[in-house]
């Protein structure tokens, strides 16, 4: 029984998992979806209600009915024949997704995580509601494209703005980032552009430090993230070199809440971000179902790869 790892070619965390599984003599096959269709071949047949067949790439031939689990780690987009027209490419990409993705989704194996569940869990407003339902504290939040609503919300307490999705954009071939920002009077005086799309505004949570909590099945690992600058105090993603880490013990309600949250969304893995207030209360900010853990694993010396490997090797959540 084989673990299928779907990951890009350059992914040190996936490298680490491959090496770990090899040491444990767990068969593993690593595949980047970018190899399909030009460097990989799929031949899958439905027989007696079950899919079987092979996925072949390089010198490797993976028997689909011998997979025990699939680790979905942000593999690359399909690379289609360059001769295709844009319309043909769009159509072919859809067929590849529905065909290869469909066959893999139809296999009776454990996914970490199933891509559709990841997509379901991407809505921040839904995340906040489910988190609250799971007993986690959440900040007051406004989603709007109405400047009056922004002023009204900001008038009742310190407020930050943050993207609902990716906090970055590429313009003129330059990567631009727009991390969390604390609103000031100048912001509120000129909200032109709020109407252009939905924006997220959230109550600023008094902060002792932040925490990233990694859930793997029923295992919970927590890392405290301590800002060393005013910039990273607002959003630690501003500069990783200005951070220090600790290994706090989350309250039992937080441990239970994050596990229940994952169960609600059908996730085996989740990377949660919390603010820990000076009074010790942990406030949920968001959960990234595909969030990174490798640097946290090193920073707090937590056996996250081992825990993930346990799940993948077992093909089940303990």
């Amino acid at each position: 029984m084989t673990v299928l790892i779907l990951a890009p070619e350059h992914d040190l965390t996936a490298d680490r998992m491959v090496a770990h599984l090899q040491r444990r003599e767990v068969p593993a096959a690593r595949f980047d979806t970018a190899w399909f269709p030009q460097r990989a071949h799929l031949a899958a047949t439905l027989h007696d209600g079950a899919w079987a067949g092979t996925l072949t790439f390089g010198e490797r031939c993976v028997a689909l009915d011998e997979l025990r689990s699939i680790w979905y780690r942000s593999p690359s987009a399909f690379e289609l024949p360059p001769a295709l027209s844009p319309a043909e490419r769009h159509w072919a990409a859809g067929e590849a997704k529905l065909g290869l993705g469909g066959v893999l989704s139809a296999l009776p194996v454990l996914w970490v995580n199933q891509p559709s569940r990841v997509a379901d869990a991407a809505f921040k407003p839904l995340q906040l509601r489910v988190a609250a339902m799971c007993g986690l504290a959440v900040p007051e939040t406004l989603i709007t494209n109405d400047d009056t609503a922004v002023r009204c919300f900001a008038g009742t307490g310190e407020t930050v703005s943050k993207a609902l999705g990716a906090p970055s954009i590429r313009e003129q071939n330059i990567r631009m980032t727009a991390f969390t920002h604390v609103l000031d009077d100048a912001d509120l005086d000129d909200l032109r552009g709020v109407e252009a799309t939905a924006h997220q505004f959230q109550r600023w949570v008094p902060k002792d430090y932040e925490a990233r909590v990694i859930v793997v099945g029923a295992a919970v690992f927590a890392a405290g993230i301590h800002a060393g600058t005013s910039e990273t105090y607002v959003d630690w993603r501003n500069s990783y070199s200005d951070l220090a880490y600790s290994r706090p013990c989350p309250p039992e309600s937080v441990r239970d809440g994050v596990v229940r949250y994952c169960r609600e969304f059908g996730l085996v893995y989740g990377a949660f971000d919390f603010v820990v207030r000076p009074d010790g209360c942990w406030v949920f900010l968001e959960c990234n179902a595909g969030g990174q853990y490798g640097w946290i694993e090193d920073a707090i010396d937590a056996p996250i790869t081992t825990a993930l490997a346990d799940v993948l090797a077992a093909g089940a959540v303990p």
Partner: protein
Amino acid sequence: MLTYADRAARGLLSSAVAFESDPFGNPGSRFALAGFTTGTDIGTSLTSPVGTRPWGLRRARPARAGRTLAPWTYDESRQLAVDVDGVPLIDSAVHGDPTAETTSTTDGEDRPSSEDWDND
């Protein structure tokens, strides 16, 4: 009581955002995005003037430079990336530290050269 995942699996809920580049994102997860396309040249887009540009992008600033990677290749046999001497990057002093100086990702630093921008 059904979990959210149960309801989604039974088609009782519409799914969330899937990015076009995601190979397996739920095909039904294009909430209100029918016909939407980002085009192929958005990387060269110009910045709109204040008033037109979404407010949430007004303070966007150039990302700090990420780390420049030494040459590497993917070793199909060992199923991991190696340097020019065939040493796995995870065993290399240059590449092995996932906490290396960089801000080229917005969600931790597992793979220093990658641009993990959708992975908040």
